[in-house]
């Protein structure tokens, strides 16, 4: 079970030899994290600290008639209570806080409900008290009078005429026009290419299937937390667990209607996010409670709060129709995607639509996307958001067509694989991508041809795409007199990015990774940096570090010139050695001369890069289906992904393995199991069944390296694509093991068993 890396034979940026890039140094924050010393948000202790607790709605849909905090406020130890009435009004403001233009009233409404609650767990009030227990007790004493309303829980139901309406002011935006009547459909968009009718007429085989996927949660182990201090000078300081300190700053300022400069956010260590720690929930509430009490206030969610009150990823209803000729060419593909946004618009249907057929070069395509509100928590991003749902549908239909045509499923995909220049239905043409290279690596892998070794076993494959993002990042590097450097960046480190960013600076400076000391700074101490998301940190923040390091090298050349009393144009720099004629000096030696040559050297990098490289991931999965119980066991699993250039291969593998296992959990176990009244019945880590070590085989990995021309080392973001193919690959494997094609997630034992019985009947 060895890990391997396949470097593309293509030379160029990825083929160059590096001293640091591609090695596996120990992460800089490692010692803190294996000794319990690393400070996560809940670990913060401040003098005079109060503890907050959120009151949440017991109903999935209800009008709030009255909230009375008097009894709670009278409990000894309680210092303050707040409701939505304490928040400044949102008016008609539209804001863009990193997730696209959104009415501020929706963001505000999700933080503390105003007139209506829209899901079970919706925050309605909060208290601050001297201990978490007193706060919890007080929260239970806040009286809220509700008028329950009928709820609607799935996209197809919410789209029907006569369905309960969540927002009286929501009008469907369809092809640029707004409808006259209130609806639960926030948006309907369409992407098209070619002539879909013609494409299906040319097909020898057409397969059309419909799919349903359940709402699932990112499942990070650290619950959300926030501590706020509204100081007496009007400045608000927030410490929290977030994927984007600047998003927290901007959102909190917006909600509280104060200038962004009045808010400082210190990102604490973050215990997982996967997209779920981009939205803001607790910070403005903690700030309000602090303002009322004059003391710092900490709020930490319970696990139940996390399930019921934060954004899972959308459940979905998807139809896919694909036609192909006998020669194995796809002639037409059509998709209908209706995603559940939860309580407020913003289901991740747009990225789902961008990715659904992105692996293929298809002439005729139509993709319809629907963003539908339902009475479930407002959804958030989850690792390649929207793409996994879409790939489950598309890749099982592709598998079925390949089978009908009698073509090997990888060969069929290779025959249709997208390449540089292929136009996606949503508009852009692919740049240099590694779709075919990933498929070829899958085909070559010994796993693909290994014997299955027993009955009721099957093997499935699938491929997935995530486009990745760029977005702004900032970085500064200061040179220390001992020849090391301090690197300051703004990207919270969830999976080892301090190190992958520091390594890129080290490569440029010609020093060891260990000689770069990276720090993730607060919003007052580093330039604007977008969220840790979209697989962007190693790419974008890495690029900022690269630029900052180049800036340092430029200045160090000047220092060498000054030292040698020559023109700077005569100084060359190569891997940490500065030379002119027969004179040379190392980075370290030169660093000792900064004071006499002009003072400190500080390099800066500030980027908003455009050269993003999308990433493809494929997987091969072997399963065994118990014919008596329908339980699916994963016997062997291989994840293959194009990393462009793996900066730190261990952490690239880690992303691939983690994404694969989240995909496996999504495929086989995980779901929001809802009562008809909209209550999540499994809101604990016992009943919301994430994979344990015992449920899994080793996750084998193959890193494919097709360099991204848009990055100096060829890096592509690697954080997300690996979650996309597993549900489809497992469905395809289950088909080969048990003879049934499944069209809903999760493929839990009861679903598998029912399909087997139906097939027999």
């Amino acid at each position, binding site marked *: 079970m060895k890990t391997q890396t396949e470097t593309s034979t293509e030379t160029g940026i990825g083929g160059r030899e590096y001293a640091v890039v591609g090695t596996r140094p120990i992460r800089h924050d490692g010692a803190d994290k294996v000794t319990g010393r690393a400070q996560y948000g809940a670990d913060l202790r401040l003098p005079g600290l109060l503890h907050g607790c959120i009151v949440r709605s017991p109903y999935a849909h209800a009008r709030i008639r009255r909230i009375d905090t008097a009894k709670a406020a009278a409990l000894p130890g309680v210092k303050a209570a707040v409701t939505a009435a304490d928040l400044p009004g949102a008016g008609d403001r539209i804001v863009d806080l990193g997730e696209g233009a959104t009415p501020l009233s929706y963001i505000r409404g999700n933080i503390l409900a105003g007139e209506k609650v829209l899901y079970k767990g919706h925050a309605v009030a909060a208290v601050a008290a001297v201990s978490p227990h007193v706060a919890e007790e007080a929260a239970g004493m806040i009286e809220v009078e509700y008028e329950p309303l009928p709820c609607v829980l799935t996209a197809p139901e919410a789209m029907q005429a006569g369905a309960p309406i969540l927002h009286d002011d929501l009008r469907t935006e369809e092809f640029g026009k707004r409808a006259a009547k209130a609806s639960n459909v926030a948006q309907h968009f369409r992407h098209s290419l070619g002539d879909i009718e013609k494409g299906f007429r040319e097909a020898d085989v057409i397969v059309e299937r419909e799919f349903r996927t359940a709402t699932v949660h990112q499942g990070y182990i650290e619950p959300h937390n926030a501590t706020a201090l509204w100081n007496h000078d009007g400045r608000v300081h927030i410490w929290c667990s977030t994927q984007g300190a600047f998003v927290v700053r901007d959102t909190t300022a917006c909600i509280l209607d104060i200038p962004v400069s009045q808010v400082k956010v210190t990102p604490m*260590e973050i215990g997982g996010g996967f997209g779920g720690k981009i939205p803001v929930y607790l910070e403005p509430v903690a700030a309000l409670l602090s303002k009322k009490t004059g003391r710092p206030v900490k709020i930490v969610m319970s696990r139940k709060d996390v399930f019921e009150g934060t954004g899972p990823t959308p459940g979905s209803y998807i139809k896919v129709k694909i036609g192909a000729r006998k020669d194995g060419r796809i002639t037409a593909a059509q998709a209908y995607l209706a995603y559940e946004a939860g309580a407020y618009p913003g289901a991740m249907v747009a990225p789902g639509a961008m990715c659904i057929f992105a692996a293929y070069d298809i002439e005729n395509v139509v993709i319809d996307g629907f963003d539908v509100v339902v009475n479930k928590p407002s959804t958030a991003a989850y690792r390649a958001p929207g793409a996994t749902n879409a790939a489950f549908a598309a890749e099982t239909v592709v598998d079925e067509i390949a089978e009908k045509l009698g073509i090997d499923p990888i060969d069929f995909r290779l025959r249709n694989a997208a390449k540089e220049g292929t136009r996606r239905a949503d508009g852009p043409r692919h740049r240099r991508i590694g779709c075919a290279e990933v498929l070829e690596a899958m085909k070559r892998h010994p796993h693909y041809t290994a014997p299955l070794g027993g009955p009721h076993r099957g093997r499935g494959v699938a491929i997935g795409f995530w486009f990745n993002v760029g977005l702004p990042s900032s970085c500064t590097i200061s040179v220390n007199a001992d020849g090391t450097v301090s690197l300051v960046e703004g990207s919270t480190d969830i999976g080892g990015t301090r190190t992958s960013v520091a390594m890129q600076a080290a490569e440029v400076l010609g020093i060891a990774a260990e000689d770069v000391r990276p720090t993730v700074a607060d919003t007052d101490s580093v330039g604007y940096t977008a969220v840790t998301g979209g697989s962007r940190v190693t790419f974008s923040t890495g690029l900022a570090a690269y630029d900052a390091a180049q800036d340092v090298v430029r200045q160090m050349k000047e220092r060498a010139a000054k030292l040698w009393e020559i023109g700077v144009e005569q100084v060359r720099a190569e891997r940490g050695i500065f030379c002119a004629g027969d004179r040379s000096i190392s980075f370290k030696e030169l660093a000792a001369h900064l004071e006499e040559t002009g003072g400190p050297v500080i390099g800066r990098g500030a980027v908003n890069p455009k050269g993003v490289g999308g990433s493809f991931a494929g997987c091969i999965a072997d399963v065994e289906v118990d014919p008596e119980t329908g339980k699916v066991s994963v016997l062997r699993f291989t994840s293959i992904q194009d990393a462009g250039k793996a900066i730190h291969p261990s952490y690239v593998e880690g992303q691939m393995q983690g994404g694969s296992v989240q995909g496996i959990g999504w495929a086989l176990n995980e779901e929001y199991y809802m009562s008809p009244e909209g209550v999540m019945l499994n809101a604990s*880590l016992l009943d919301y069944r994430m994979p344990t070590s015992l449920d899994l085989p080793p996750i084998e990995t193959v890193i494919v390296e097709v360099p991204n021309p848009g990055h100096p080392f060829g890096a592509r973001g690697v954080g997300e694509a690996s979650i996309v193919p597993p549900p489809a690959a497992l469905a395809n494997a289950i088909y080969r093991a048990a003879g049934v094609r499944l069209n809903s997630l999760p493929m839990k034992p009861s679903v598998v068993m029912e399909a087997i019985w139906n097939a027999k009947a």
Partner: protein
Amino acid sequence: MRARTQVQATINGETVEFLCEPRQSLLECLRDELGLTGAKEGCNDGNCGACTVILDGRIVNSCLVLGLEAAGSEITTIEGIARGAELHPVQRAFLEQAALQCGFCTPGFIVASKALLDEEPDPSPERIRLWLANNLCRCTGYDKIVRAVEQAAAQLQKVKA
């Protein structure tokens, strides 16, 4: 405020005393009364293992033990795993194998793994997976964690030999 009781226990080799409300869990006492925040709260109902500590030789979820129940017991937390200035082989192996990403579940995994190797110096990968099934990790997919425990076992064997 409930009445608080004085509790004495041996934690990481030192005798400590703390005041504890009847409703406070051992996890709360460690974190809030003693400042030992290495053990984490991920679920507070015994299902994630992030709060794992060794209590009288057995691993427990410290969120499921009352602070009062810890009276007179011997407890090892993540803060007591390193040997002075030197990391324990399990800690070193986690770093070398890149067996952590966000690091939040890591203290629980390291405490549980150390307890395993104290009892069974040469566990199979399957045995490691069974032992660690009480600890949830959402980042790594467990592969590198299992390898780290195998490496630590080999390292400990070598030291003994």
